[in-house]
């Protein structure tokens, strides 16, 4: 069973996490429908 992806929804928070965890950020623009 695949884990659900824990998406962030705030750019500033995601960039801070990226810096702290030494990771790049995947930004997905989606159609909310």
């Amino acid at each position, binding site marked *: *069973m*695949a*884990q*659900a*992806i*824990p*998406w*962030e*929804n*705030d*750019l500033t928070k*995601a*960039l*801070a*996490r*990226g*810096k702290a*965890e030494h*990771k*790049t*950020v*995947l*930004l*997905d*623009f*989606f*159609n*909310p429908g």
Partner: protein
Amino acid sequence: MDAVTYPDMQVSNFIIDKLVPLRVPVDSPLAGDFKVTWTPTLVTLDFYGKEHHRTVGFLSPEELVPSLILGMGKTDFDSGDFNDAIVHFNTLLNGYPRSAAAPEAIFLRGVSRYKASHDAGALKDAYQQLQAGYPESEWAKRAHPYSLL
């Protein structure tokens, strides 16, 4: 993406382990900042918020993971971290050699090797690999001048 690609175990594990996933609706102000007009649009950012890679349109699980690895490699490449970029490009090419991202990875691996070593043979090697494996790709055409080295 929600129906097929993101529920795939390899995809979700890769994203959780290797990236910080951020999801924003296309009608948000951020979409205007990034000039996004269609979905899905996936953008790879460094932790300063600078864009290094973008795809528009659906990607299957078999194509998304190598595309994400390419984005990680391009982030290092653009930052001048050529040895780290080579590691990412090698990971892509060893794991997903027939993916759509592979020809660009060969091209950028060759450039990275050249930038790290100043050995022009790295560029010629990239050209030869592209000609042998991906002769119809745009990256084979872009590498054509290296055949003269």
